Each structure stands twice: as structure tokens, then as C-alpha cells.
């Protein structure tokens, strides 16, 4: 599309189109579209000035990541590789923005030419803007959110991706200069003995954890919501308050409380020893499956209230006639649940389910607070309950291997986005969007 626009402009014999092709906004000025022409021209002038003053240097800096190492003792400011990388990235974003503006300039002048509105008959600037807003309202409305997503989501993700291709971390932190190292970080994660095994071992547990915890939390919340929806349950509001209270307590406080609960000096072991048995290491190095089950339970304690609230809201929209009809047809409670309740709730909550899966896949807090500070045999700087996100933290924050951490992040990102997109695209919520409307 962009190419065809450019080719059309090149083929055009109109001097105004050729003028805009060479200098953004010039054709508009020749068409007596003063405000628009000046706006395009000013944008071009600002871009040229930016490139001359700093942009060109930022592009070069993006490739070199600095040549002069800072020396605070000698007062040598030196180059800051990370800032240079960021500035280079910003420069590319600005270049992309100017290319987009340049295309709009070409499209605009072609339209003027096509409408024969170049002889002073063209609509004024304000009416042009009004017309554009009317025709392309969706673009105008979405411009700000898209810009926000670009600045606060896309650029940090791209930055993280770029970091994974450098040697940033370990001893290479400012003022030392960072270098591009290609796929070296990925190679080290996936090939170094010990690291490779740890990665796949943790990945396996991570997938099991994400599936189990999502299922437990989801069906636990649904079960609780159904239970509290039953007519026979008295004082529903009162009973609903308890899970909400559990939800209202900050997560890390709950986790520390559970850690204490299961520690050797905690109340559970107190009662076990009082009963004449030996204390149990619920979370110590030998805990193994016990620690994993406790993790799932604690996560359920924290997450089920959210699922319960969600399910309660959805259940309140259920058409009760369906149940009545099902009862007349002889369907029992289990069949009603399987054929009516579950499809309806799953249909409405598929996107939430995917979000929960990703949230659980990247659930940092549970095992960091419950069982942090263990490196186990057979694992590289990790324990048997650590998830990839915990391992990532051990590597990148505790041990300052930022590039390795970024590489692991990118792998996590690829896995979670692939899973969530494929599940979502195959789900009824996506394929049969109108079914339950």
C-alpha cells in the first residue's frame, strides 16, 4: 500500500505532487493549503534539526553503544551504553513517525490532485480537519491510547528484547561499556551445561503449575459462587464477605503469614509436636511435592475470591428458564451444570481464563516469599519450586545478569503469547462471539 502510494506519486506528472514528494508540505503550499503545508513543512524542519543536532549521533550510538568509558575519578563523563541504546530506539520511533507523516502528506496531495482542488478551491484547514475527523473518527479516537501503548508497552518490550542481544550485566554495568553480542545470551541459556537442564526442568514445572493453579482457582471460585448462589444458603452476603476479606489483605502479607504458618516455629508444627510427632519441614529443602502443593493451596487462597466474584456476576445474568426447562426434560444437577452453567461461564470468561493462565505462569510472589533463598542440586541457581520468573529474578536481579534475564523474559513472552493466542483463537468466545448475545 505504502509502496503503491509512493509509486503513484512518482508516476504523477503533477508539479505539486512532485514537490510534496521531494519536500513534505511543499505541494500543499503550492495548492494554497497554507496551514497544512506549513504544518508538514515545520514537522520536516523539526525532524531535520533533530537529526542534525542529536538524531544522527543517536543512530550511530545505537550501533556502537559508546566508545568512551566513563571515569568518575577523573571526571570523564564517558558514554552510557544503556542511555545510548534508549536514545537510538527513540530515534527510530521518531523516524517511523516521520515516515508515517510523509505518507499522509503524499496521500493528502494525491487526494487534492485527484479532486482537482489545487487552485485555491481546496477546503480550508479547519474544514479539512473536520472532514478527516468525520471520515476517520476511529483513528482520531484511538490515536491517544495507541500512543500510550506504544510508549508504555511497546518501547519497554522492544528495549528488553534489545537488551537480550547485548552483554549487559555481570561485570558489564555502567560505567563500563556494553556491547552487542547477538544471540549469545540465548545460546548460553539453551546450551550451557547446567543452565539448559535447569531451564527445561523449570519450564516443565512452570507449565504444570500454570495449568493446575488456573484450573484450581477457576473451578474453586466457580464452586464457591455456585454454593453461595444456592437458595438454601442463608446470609449469603455474610459468607461472601470472608473470601473478599482474604482478597483484601495484601498478597505478600498473606504469603509471609503462610510462610510462618508452615515454618518449623509456626503454629502447625507447634500442634504437630504437641501431639507427640516430629516437626515437618513443609517448605525446607526436602519438602519436594509438599512445597508445591502448599504453593497451589496458598495461590488458591489468594486467587479464588476473584474468580468467585467474577463467577457470581456472570451467574446473576443466567437465564433461569433454561434450568427450569432442563429440569422438566429430566436433567439432573450435574447435567445442568455441565450443559448449561459451565458453557455459559466458560464462554464469558475465556479471556479472563487466559489472563489468569499467564498471570499464574508468571506468578513471582508465591514461591519467592514462601520458599526463596534455596539453590538445589541439579538446578542452576534455583530450587525445585522456582518458576521461570523466579529463576529470571535470581539471574537478573540477584546476580545482575540482565541480558540473560532479558533472554529468558523473551522466551517466556514467546511461550505465553503463543499459548494465549492459540487458545483464544480456538475458543468459542472468539469464534462464536454472537452466540450468547
Amino acid at each position, binding site marked *: 500500500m505504502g509502496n503503491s502510494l509512493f509509486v503513484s506519486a512518482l508516476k504523477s506528472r503533477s508539479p505539486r505532487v512532485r514537490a510534496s514528494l521531494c519536500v513534505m508540505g511543499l505541494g500543499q503550499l503550492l495548492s494554497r493549503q497554507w496551514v497544512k503545508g506549513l504544518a508538514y513543512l515545520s514537522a520536516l524542519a523539526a525532524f531535520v534539526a533533530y537529526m542534525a543536532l542529536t538524531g544522527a549521533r543517536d543512530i550511530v550510538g545505537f550501533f556502537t553503544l559508546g566508545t568512551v568509558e566513563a571515569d*568518575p575519578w577523573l571526571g570523564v563523563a564517558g558514554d552510557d551504553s544503556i542511555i545510548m541504546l534508549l536514545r537510538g530506539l527513540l530515534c527510530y520511533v521518531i523516524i517511523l513517525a516521520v515516515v508515517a507523516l510523509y505518507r499522509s502528506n503524499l496521500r493528502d496531495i494525491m487526494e487534492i490532485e485527484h479532486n482537482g482542488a489545487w487552485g485555491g478551491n481546496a477546503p480550508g484547514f479547519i474544514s479539512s480537519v473536520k472532514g478527516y475527523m468525520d471520515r476517520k473518527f476511529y483513528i482520531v479516537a484511538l490515536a491517544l491510547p495507541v500512543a500510550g501503548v506504544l510508549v508504555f508497552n511497546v518501547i519497554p518490550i522492544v528495549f528488553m528484547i534489545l537488551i537480550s542481544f547485548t552483554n549487559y550485566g555481570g561485570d558489564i554495568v555502567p560505567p563500563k561499556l556494553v556491547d552487542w553480542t547477538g544471540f549469545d545470551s540465548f545460546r548460553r541459556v539453551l546450551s550451557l551445561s547446567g543452565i539448559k537442564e535447569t531451564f527445561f526442568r523449570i519450564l516443565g514445572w512452570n507449565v504444570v503449575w500454570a495449568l493446575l493453579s488456573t484450573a484450581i482457582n477457576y473451578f474453586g471460585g466457580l464452586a464457591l459462587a455456585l454454593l453461595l448462589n444456592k437458595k438454601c444458603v442463608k446470609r449469603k452476603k455474610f459468607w461472601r464477605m470472608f473470601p473478599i476479606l482474604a482478597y483484601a489483605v495484601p498478597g505478600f502479607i498473606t504469603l509471609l503469614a503462610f510462610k510462618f504458618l508452615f515454618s518449623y516455629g509456626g503454629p502447625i508444627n507447634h500442634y504437630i509436636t504437641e501431639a507427640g510427632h516430629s516437626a515437618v519441614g513443609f517448605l525446607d529443602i526436602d519438602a519436594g511435592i509438599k512445597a508445591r502443593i502448599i504453593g497451589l493451596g496458598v495461590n488458591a487462597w489468594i486467587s479464588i475470591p476473584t474468580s468467585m466474584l467474577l463467577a457470581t456476576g456472570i451467574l446473576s445474568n443466567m437465564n433461569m428458564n433454561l434450568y427450569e426447562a432442563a429440569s422438566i426434560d429430566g436433567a439432573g444437577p450435574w447435567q445442568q451444570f455441565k450443559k448449561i452453567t459451565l458453557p455459559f461461564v466458560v464462554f464469558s470468561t475465556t479471556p479472563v481464563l487466559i489472563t489468569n493462565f499467564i498471570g499464574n505462569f508468571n506468578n513471582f510472589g508465591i514461591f519467592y516469599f514462601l520458599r526463596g533463598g534455596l539453590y538445589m542440586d541439579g538446578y542452576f541457581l534455583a530450587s525445585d519450586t522456582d518458576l521461570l520468573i523466579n529463576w529470571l529474578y535470581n539471574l537478573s536481579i540477584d546476580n545482575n545478569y540482565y541480558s540473560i534475564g532479558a533472554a529468558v523474559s523473551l522466551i517466556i513472552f514467546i511461550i505465553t503469547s503463543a499459548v494465549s493466542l492459540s487458545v483464544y483463537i480456538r475458543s468459542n468466545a472468539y469464534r462464536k462471539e454472537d452466540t450468547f448475545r
Partner: protein
Amino acid sequence: MRRKAAFIVLAIVLALLLTACGGAKNKAGGGAGEGGFQGDPANPVVLHILENDTAKAEGYLQALLDAFNEAYKDKGIQAVDANMDEYTDLAMNGPYGYGPDVLYQANDQLMRYAEDRHILPIEAEKLDCYASTPESAWDAFKMNFDGTVYTMGVPVNIQEPMLFYREDMMPEDWQTKWDKDGSGIADFFENWCDLYAYSKELHDADPNKYGFMVSMNNLYLASPFMLSHGNYIFGEKDGVLDDTDIGFSKGDAVSGLWALRQFAGQMNEGCIDDTVTLNRYEKLADGSYFCAVSTPDTYSLFLNNLTNRYKQDGLSEEEAKEKAVENLKMVEVPARMPKSGDLGQDSSSMTDDDWTETVVMGGVNGYGISSYTKYRDACVEFVNFATSYDMLKLRADTLGIAPTRSDVAAQCGDTADIIFKSLEMGRIYLMPSIKAVDQIWVPCQTVMGDVAKDPFREKQGEAPKYPGKTELQAALESIDRNIYDAIHTLAG
């Protein structure tokens, strides 16, 4: 070549700085604190001072700032609280113009900054505190850059794990039964075999009571078991700490770990994780523990718990506090550890050759000057003032720290003096002053906790994981390997 040139320039800059300070000293006839900096009193330079939270909370920082500002008002220097988190990251903030001018930190933290030159070298010999501070304390702040040794910080106080105990839980007949050498000090405070024996005696008499208690997975607090048998954290190469030479498994380290395993058997399962660290104040107060390890700055926590206990028993606030002060004692951990690691030996039959000196892990806190300060000479003036006799005495009195200045330590009572002497005698293994020290904690914590669990595995009828020294040696080697991996494997 470029590095060499940089260091030549650096040497010239330092020489100039030295000359400038020297001139000031000659003129004023005093230390670096006099004559080094002269600003405009009407428009003073402002120094941002980062102190620890305790110094702020106890009012010491304010007293220091007030005293300094009064003394230097004619020299155009004003010091203010940097108002930052005590663990603020100079490496992240300094290069961008934020961060303090002078910062108070532990030696390992300060020297992390030093490695990347975020703090400035200091001419230690020009400071008033130089002569009265032991060489070992200065060593904690020394760094070798390409063959030249620089002092990067100024020592203020020393820390080491201490033993807190209840005097009323000492055996009544300790002078006849537990003072075999007639030193006037109970044997269980002099050697680990007797501490083990007395702990066993207490626990056998009442299963709810324990003698010596510590979280065995805590490298700092349980360091006597990890550092007393000729092992080390990082070796040295050409006078520089070598982070490729990790020595937890070296020497006869396995005997220390054997002693740890043995002593854990006289404790409860709380020694496997941080339970003892959390409940030691309460359990010492209620008489469940005879003694526990902690740092000197936690004295008030032990005291408050014991006071509360006495108040619950019906004493008035004043009586309870008085009784608690009388009963709560703080001493160093026993100085002698059996070489073989067998704590079950009868100390009376052991000769001097059977013992090795206990080594504990410790740290030196001190001042450093940010490389990003605009007023380095003024900062030197401040550091000199803050480490003067009067200010360190005030600091010790206010905060209960053990000062590194010998003249102040001698005036501060037994504890400060004892810690100071231990430092001089090499009984305190100072935390290595390199970044790599960050990587030692988790591998040690994992293995120490696992070894401490072994006696409890046996009690439950399970097979022990570490039945002999061969298995313990393998565990120590895994510590070294994990630390090495954390530092080097991914370093590229």
C-alpha cells in the same frame, strides 16, 4: 595503554589533592579537618549526608549535623540529611546527579561502589582518626587498582555476632563444676565443647529448654562453624581478593560443618530455618533458651522482652528493667573450637593442640565520598569531623556501636573494647570487600540448613544425608561450585 595513562593522570590528581591538604594542615597545624576547604560563609556549599536509619531514629545524625554546621559555619560548609533510603543505590543515581555526597555503609557495600569508581579514594593518613584506627579496619576499605592500593572508606564501627545469655540460667555450681581452668569465666563461654555439654545437660533435664540456639542456616550468625577451620571465603592473588578462588571447602572446613551438624542435634527444628532468629528474644526471655546469637544492636530487643516478662511476673516497670539489665549479658561466642569438630569431647582432657581459634564473620561500617560530589574537599572535612574522637564517642554512647578508634573503644566499656581487640587479633573475618560477596549467602544458607536438618532426619528414622565427613565435604564443595557459577558461569 589507555588505562595506564588514566592512572598516571589519577596519580597526578591525587598528588595535587594531597599537596593541597598538606598545605592546609601546615597552615592550621591540625588534621585534614582544618584548612582544607574554605568556602563563602554567606553562601555555603551544601553536603548531602546519607546515614543509616538507626542513626536518624536515635537522633545521632541530627546531633552530628548540628555540631558540624556550628564548627564549620565560618568555612562555608553546611551538611544536611540526604533524606534518602539508607540503601540507596549510588551506582544508579550518582552518575545522573542524584545521590549523597557522603555515605555511611558497611564495607562490602561501599567497596562494591569502589570497584566501579563510584566513590573516591581517601588520603587516610591525613585524617585525625588514622593513627588510632587499627590496620585491619583500614584493610576493609583498601582496594588494589592495577597494582596501586587505595583507601576507599573511613572506618567507624565494627560488627560481629555476639552471644546473649541469661545469668540466672547459669548453673549454680558453675564456679566449681564449669570453671576448670579457674579463669573466673564459665567454660561454656570459653569453648564450644563445654557449651555443647551444658546445652545437652539443660535439654536432658528439661526437654523444653535449650542451651545455645542459633539459626544454623544463617551464615553470618553461625559463621563460627563455617570459618574457624582454616577455610576462607575468597582467596588472594597478588594481594588482591580472587573471586575465582572460593574456599568454603578448603582447609579442614569439614570439621566445622561436622560441629554444626552435631550442635543442631541439641537444638530444635527451629535451627533449620530462620525460626530461632525470629523467636530468640521471646524464647530467651521466657527461659526456653539459655543463650542465643545476635548482633550487638539488638540488645534493646532482648532487654525489652525480658523486662516485659518480669512485668508479667508482677514487677514494676523500674524493677523489671533493673532486673533485666542485671540478668541479660552479652559476650563474644566461645573462643575455642575443637579442631576435630567433635563437640562431644571432654575439654579437660584436651591440650592446646586440640583447639583452634573461633573465627566469626564481621563487618566494618564506614564513610565513603561519592565520586559525583562537587565538593570533595568539603566532604573530606565532614568525614574527618564525623570520625573525630568526640563524634565517635557520641555515636557509641547513642547507638551502642563498637567504634574502630582504639581511644574511643577504650572509653566505651567492655563490649566495644572486646570487639575491638578481637578485630586486632584476627578473630573477626571481615566480609570481603568485593561485589562477588553478594553471591555467597544463598548457597551457604541452603547447605547449612540441610546439614542442620540431618540430626532430625535420624530422629525420625530417616537415613541421614550427611552421615560422615565425606558427604559433608561434598556439600562444602557444592557451596564453592554454586558461588563460582553465580559469579562466573554466565559472565561471558
